[in-house]
């Protein structure tokens, strides 16, 4: 029942939001429904929900971690939207709140589905739900962004569907087992046809990888994040990518159970390293703040698949990194959104000296910078440390040192631009009033990131450890 409620709340809320006449009421409703969803997710931690629809929908540790991350980030973004919609009117108008809620519903479906076709439908739904929101300024650049996003992600999703069919083919030769149900695929993994399973893995890696924005399928990312309203960008960088990663983690789970880990691990590590290299290369000298965040997102996606590919402690690092990445992306995108709001529209908006113009957002940006680059005591330090330790444990010293070198390059490039944005000269010097709606949410996310670096609560640790275990790894 709880699972159905989790899916039903955003779906019903999306319809109701469309029916509400006043923009203020729609924004408040968005926040309330998001909080309701988060409360249901919290309930799932105390009373694990029973599987429904013959095991097609179930909530395991990995799903619960992703669901909580997405729901928490969404609640913050939803309340942020209350303040944001008073200052700006993004594209989508009446449908803005409905599209966001539909996005949440689809994300929930991804997190709770134990059936690959359903998972695919959820990812498809997420892609479509945000597409109208990217196109928020009716101009050439915005159009180009949405076109690139649509082409690359729809091709990716089509190839992923082909991958799902391949997976069904791999299973068809094995006797028994419900088709495409995760639990049956894992328990009957020995009977899966290896050639088709490998083909399925490659197509799903490319398809879900395009959704995550792994290099070389990342080309839509800078444009889309650069053009989308910051809160939509934050949701894409924190939630959409996490769900796509969950899809990839599920296939990896099947592949590990089927004993083709030696085939899949190098592929994952390769995509991870390539993403890190591309991110490091394009971050050097990047001046646009949102494009900077986009390449930072490519970097973190690279770290996620790298951890997944390394296994061992790396798997634990990857699952923890997923939570951290979502929080810190929320902080960064929302803080940058505030800076952009205060800079005003125009050909040359003022994007430096945030600390003087908007002290709270400037401070958040500074905290976010340290968090996103994996400095202690933030959570990303721990998760990146775990991923690199995974490389050392596996004896992959070259990989470990390459990653450390790339992380250093990324640290320098990110710091250079963001410190400029925070401390640089502020010509107008006029302070801009900051609405508490626009500051409270990102501040809460920053606190969560800080907490995860200092103390991981027991139940969360057990969920992370369980998640790492099914991916063929272990917790420290």
């Amino acid at each position, binding site marked *: 029942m709880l699972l159905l409620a989790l899916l039903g709340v955003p779906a019903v809320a999306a319809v109701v939001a469309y029916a509400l006449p006043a923009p203020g009421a729609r924004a408040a409703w968005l926040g309330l429904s998001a909080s309701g969803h988060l409360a249901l997710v919290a309930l799932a931690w105390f009373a694990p929900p029973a599987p429904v629809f013959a095991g097609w929908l179930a909530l395991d540790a990995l799903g619960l971690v992703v669901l909580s991350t997405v729901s928490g980030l969404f609640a913050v973004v939803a309340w942020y939207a209350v303040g944001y919609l008073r200052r700006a009117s993004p594209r989508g108008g009446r449908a803005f709140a409905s599209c966001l809620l539909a996005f949440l519903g689809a994300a929930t479906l991804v997190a709770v589905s134990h059936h690959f076709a359903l998972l695919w439908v959820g990812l498809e739904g997420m892609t479509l739900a945000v597409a109208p929101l990217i196109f928020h300024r009716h101009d*050439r650049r915005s159009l180009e962004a949405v076109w690139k996003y649509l082409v690359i992600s729809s091709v990716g999703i089509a190839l992923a569907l082909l991958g799902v069919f391949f997976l069904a083919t791999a299973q068809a030769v094995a006797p028994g087992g419900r088709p495409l149900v995760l639990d049956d695929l894992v328990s009957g993994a020995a009977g899966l046809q290896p050639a088709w399973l490998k083909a399925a893995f490659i197509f799903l890696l490319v398809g879900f990888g395009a959704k995550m924005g792994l290099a070389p399928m990342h080309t839509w990312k800078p444009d889309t994040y650069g053009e989308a309203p910051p809160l939509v960008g934050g949701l894409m960088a924190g939630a959409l990518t996490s769900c796509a990663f969950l899809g990839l983690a599920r296939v990896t789970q099947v592949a590990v159970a089927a004993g083709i880990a030696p085939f899949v691990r190098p592929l994952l590590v390769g995509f991870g390293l390539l993403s890190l290299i591309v991110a490091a290369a394009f971050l050097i000298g990047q001046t646009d703040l949102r494009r900077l965040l986009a390449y930072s997102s490519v970097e973190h996606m690279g770290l996620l698949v790298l951890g997944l590919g390394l296994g061992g402690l790396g798997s634990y690092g990857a699952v923890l990194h997923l939570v951290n990445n979502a929080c810190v992306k929320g902080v960064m995108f929302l803080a940058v959104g505030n800076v952009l709001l205060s800079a005003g529209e125009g050909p040359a908006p003022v994007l430096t000296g945030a600390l003087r113009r908007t002290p709270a957002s400037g401070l958040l940006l500074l905290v976010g910078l340290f968090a996103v680059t994996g400095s202690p005591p933030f959570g990303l330090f721990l998760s990146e440390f775990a991923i690199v330790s995974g490389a050392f444990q596996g004896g992959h010293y070259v990989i470990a040192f390459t990653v450390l070198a790339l992380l250093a390059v990324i640290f320098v490039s990110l710091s250079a631009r963001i410190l400029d944005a925070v401390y640089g000269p502020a010509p107008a010097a006029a302070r801009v009033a900051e609405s508490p709606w626009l500051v409270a949410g990102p501040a809460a996310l920053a606190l969560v990131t800080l907490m995860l670096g200092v103390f991981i609560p027991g139940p969360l640790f057990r969920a992370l450890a369980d998640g790492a275990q099914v991916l063929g790894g272990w917790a420290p």
Partner: protein
Amino acid sequence: MTQIVELLLLLVALTNFVVLGTTRLSTCIRAIAVQGALLGLLPLALYPGGSLHTWGLAAGTILVKAIVLPRFLRWAIREAAVRREVEPRLGYVASLLLGVAAVAAAFAISRQLPLLEQAREMLVPVALATVIIGLLVLTTRTKALVQVVGYIMLENGVYLFGLIHVERVPFLVEVGVLLDVFVAVFIMGIVVFHISREFDSLDTTRLTELTD
């Protein structure tokens, strides 16, 4: 029945080449409509004496792929007032040759993969070839509308492959595909419409402002 299946698959492969070789947008759309109709007939030929399920699948496919989508594309052409000139980045002869290579590759790959009994000899190779040719059209043509045609071909290839599983895996998969094609192209169409209003052209090579 096997002969009918093979004939249908052969015709599907031919429509791929029509799209690759034509200079006219309307021919592209006609070819894609014919391909949609062929895909609709395939489940009936593959699973003779079909259940309600296969009939429903056939009817749904023909409705969406052979009637609705082509009409929608034609509407988009009228709105944007473009008719001919497919303007490939790659010459027609080169793309036809690449198409032939794609078919050869698809047959070679399918040889390597152990097949199921439902997978008739030609189904998997034609499906893979359609996927590859769809990708080819999507990447080598510059007009937004032709790219949409390429995307539909890619989807058609995926659908063809999915036909193996019609009886084993429940409804959901097919519904997912149809929904996906419908919605994705719908949105793409709207975007195309916007593109035309914005630039007075449907040429995506002019979408090059966002670079690093």
